[in-house]
């Protein structure tokens, strides 16, 4: 029966269910109603009904999350950019970031059970990168005895084929999935020779095996492989002449996670886990009708062994501890020759204690220490309180520290751009030697005062405070609010250390910037009648560079009028904060469905204007023409059960065809698709 099959696929509710079990917030299974930090869960049903294909599709519709198109699809959480959010698949971190951005379009959402989103610093459990939050993608359960086959076709020749397989054989649970995704790309500008998005093909394979060994022990392993190829046909206009290059970009990634688990009657649970992941990127371009070209190679390896042990000490006290070692290596011709190996080793431990004082009051404290080979060590504490005065009301307060380790690029980059002004960027560990080399070759003109400040980079750190309420009016309506503030320091920025004789500037990396992000997130859920579910969300966000705020207060910051070109002093209210941040974001989603599996959704996603680039010479976002226009995107979908074992859905993203060619190149306009699934 279709309804049964349907219920299997989308078993959990689309609304926040306080009984929903979440693992990401505390690294232990806890029901949503007992978690003292901001958590959101996206169910597979919501993902299916929204017609999402890749991870960024579904995240773009969540309150307080912004998808930013820069070196791939990255996300902003609580106003912190992509490099400060940790992305996990089944608890293990993904690698392969470009300029700090992990491209979420490489992750299929066709084989996942749910997505857990934890907001606020979580380095006390997860270490580096967990500053803005953690997004954990939880894949389909093994051992479900079901198979589904899906095929989708959409505009731009987008094809997505998917096979999910899950079986229980005696004491062995199995899960496997295959995904293929392609598009021929598109051009936003009519008659343009170069496509805005180039044709690509991607594939993902997953396999996991879990074996019960007696009553306490369990062992298993997961393997995931992901590959993508993007065609590149690039035209560069250089002073009137057009240079055409042709080539490709190939990315390969794999993850392997073996584990051994001991679990005794919920009293003690210990898991020993290995994790090996590799990312291999190659980009090659050959210039047409001429010699020369571009060859970029980047190979990253991350290996980790970790133990985590959870003790349920008493009914009201739980203790978790963990420790692990990591070894990371990178080979890239961006740094040196592709054969030079750069390495870092990390050893860490973490502890967490959860104590219930009564049915109304709980606190959780956590601490993690990361000792690093390539940069300074870090302590990351976190503390959270929860107070439940009644069954309807829940109050949470938490404070945590987060950090992000300097990446290999910031340590070892050795890049000279010959096309645009012959500028160079040197990582902090190689800058001094590179300056010596240029000086010996008589190519160096002068150094700036900052040269004296070149030193080993420290991790970027943040402190984040979250305070929120969850108010459950009835089974049909719920209201949530969360106030947040993140203070970031030691942020790594590039600055000029020297000038070359040919005028080119030389940049390196420094722990210079301090910034803040703060705001409020509101959510409301209401069931209307028997069939209609309404979800609404809003985020107010204020961000600022703290040095800029100080300068504005001192009257040292100026801006230029659009009307008469004259400069005047900038006020605090005239400062637009960090670029790419929208002050107001909101969403409104209607979802109607009946018991037979028919559904329809309509989702309104709003984003207010956001700063793009400085135009009046002060290096800041302030003038009205320095913002991209705010907009509303409307997505809609319908689903119908076709026959026994078959279901079908169709949808249109960006119904009103909103486009912004310079500032939203990743938005192709109205896109229709149809999706058929066979479940048996």
């Amino acid at each position: 029966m279709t309804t049964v099959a349907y219920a299997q696929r989308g078993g959990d509710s689309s609304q926040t269910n306080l009984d929903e079990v979440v693992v990401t917030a505390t690294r232990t299974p806890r029901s949503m109603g007992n978690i003292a930090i901001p958590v959101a869960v996206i169910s597979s049903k919501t993902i299916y009904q929204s017609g999402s294909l890749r991870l960024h599709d579904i995240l773009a519709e969540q309150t307080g999350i912004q998808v930013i198109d820069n070196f791939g699809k990255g996300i902003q959480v609580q106003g912190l950019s992509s490099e400060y959010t940790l992305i996990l698949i089944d608890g293990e971190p993904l690698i392969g970031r470009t300029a700090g951005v992990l491209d979420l379009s490489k992750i299929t959402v066709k084989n996942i059970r749910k997505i857990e989103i934890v907001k606020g610093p979580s380095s006390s459990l997860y270490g580096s990168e967990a500053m803005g939050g953690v997004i954990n993608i939880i894949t389909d359960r093994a051992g479900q005895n079901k198979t589904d086959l899906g095929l989708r076709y959409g505009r731009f020749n987008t094809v997505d084929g998917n096979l999910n397989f899950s079986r229980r054989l005696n004491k062995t649970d199995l899960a496997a999935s295959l995904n293929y995704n392609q598009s021929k790309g598109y051009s936003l500008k009519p008659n343009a020779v170069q496509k805005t998005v180039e044709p690509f093909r991607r594939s993902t394979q997953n396999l996991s095996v879990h074996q019960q060994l007696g009553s306490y022990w369990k062992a298993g392993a997961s393997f995931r492989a992901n590959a993508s190829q993007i065609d590149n046909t690039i035209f560069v206009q250089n002073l009137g002449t057009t240079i055409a290059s042709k080539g490709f970009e190939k990315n390969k990634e794999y993850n392997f996670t073996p584990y051994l688990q001991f679990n005794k009657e919920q009293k003690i649970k210990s898991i020993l886990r290995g994790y090996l992941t590799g990312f291999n990127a190659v980009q090659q371009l050959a210039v047409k009708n001429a010699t020369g070209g571009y060859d970029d190679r980047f190979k990253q390896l991350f290996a980790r062994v970790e133990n985590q042990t959870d003790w349920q000490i008493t009914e009201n006290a739980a203790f978790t501890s963990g420790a692990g070692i990591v070894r990371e290596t990178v080979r890239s011709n961006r740094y040196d020759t592709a054969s030079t190996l750069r390495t870092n080793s990390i050893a860490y431990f973490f502890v967490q204690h959860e104590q219930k004082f009564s049915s109304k009051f709980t606190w959780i404290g956590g601490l993690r220490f990361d000792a690093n080979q390539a940069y300074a060590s870090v302590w990351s504490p976190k503390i959270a309180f929860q107070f439940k005065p009644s069954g309807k009301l829940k109050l949470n307060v938490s404070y945590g520290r987060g950090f992000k380790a300097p990446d290999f690029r910031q340590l070892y980059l050795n890049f000279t751009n010959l096309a645009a002004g012959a500028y160079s960027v040197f990582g902090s560990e190689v800058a001094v030697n590179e300056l010596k080399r240029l000086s010996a070759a008589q190519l160096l003109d002068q150094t700036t005062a900052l040269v004296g400040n070149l030193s080993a980079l420290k991790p970027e750190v943040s402190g984040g405070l979250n305070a929120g309420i969850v108010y459950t009016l009835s089974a049909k309506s719920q209201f949530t609010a969360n106030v947040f503030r993140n203070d970031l320091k030691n942020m790594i920025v590039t600055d000029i250390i020297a000038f070359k004789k040919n005028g080119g500037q030389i940049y390196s990396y420094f722990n210079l910037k301090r910034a803040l992000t703060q705001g409020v997130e509101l959510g409301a859920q209401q069931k209307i009648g028997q069939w209609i579910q309404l979800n609404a969300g809003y985020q107010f966000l204020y961000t600022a560079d703290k040095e800029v705020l100080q300068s504005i207060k001192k009257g040292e910051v100026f801006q230029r009028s659009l009307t008469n070109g004259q400069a005047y002093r900038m006020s605090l209210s005239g400062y637009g904060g960090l670029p790419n941040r929208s002050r107001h974001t909101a969403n409104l989603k209607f979802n109607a469905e009946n018991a037979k599996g028919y559904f329809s959704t309509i989702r309104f996603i709003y984003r207010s204007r956001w700063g793009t680039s400085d135009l009046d010479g002060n290096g800041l976002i302030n003038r009205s023409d320095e913002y991209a226009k705010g907009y509303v995107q409307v997505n809609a979908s319908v689903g119908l059960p076709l026959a026994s074992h078959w279901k079908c859905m169709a949808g249109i993203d960006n119904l009103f065809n909103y486009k912004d060619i310079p500032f939203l190149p990743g938005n192709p306009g109205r896109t229709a698709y149809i999706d058929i699934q066979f479940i048996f």
Partner: protein
Amino acid sequence: MRISRIIGSAMLALVIFQACEKNEAPVVVATLTEKTVSGIPADTIVGLVNGQPVGAGKFTFFSFETNAVVPSTDSNSVKWDVAVRGTAIITNGGNSGPGVGGAFVYVGTFDDVKAVPKDSVFRQDNAPVSYAVPNSSNKGWYVYNPVSMLITPVPGRVLVFKTAKGKYAKVEILNYYKGGITPAATATDAEKLKNQRYYSFRFAYQADGTMNFK
């Protein structure tokens, strides 16, 4: 806020003025007229050499006193006060000209410079090592964006000049492109090159030799 403050002080002045009216005559202070100049070419691009844009290599000379461009045949005289070529600005003094001119960059608004501060040090040109007005991005009057390849005057930079004849002027550069309009970042290279090296600026010149700009 600024406007209301001006109105406020104007009203206050009116009250004081009325209060004083019977006893003494109001003192009339001559205010300097502020002048705006645009379209001053500064060695505009004439072509490409080895793929690099070049001009004819000539400075354009300007006099604050006459508010006019001075012919280059007068370059070895004190008839000019300032000259521009690309982003380079020279003063009639030091090793750039026979005058006593110099300049410095003041951080603030044009209106902030009510007088040349008493302790001001006028820098002089020592070409090609240094210039009174530094000629590099974010060091003097402009910032260069290597991505959009556009030149933008930094807001809040006032160039305070000592003229060839030893008088004082203050200048705010408003724009570096033809018609006072910076091309869009998405404009073609050709458009950016064709329209650049045209100065728009406003200035106030104190003819009486004092350091006041009121």
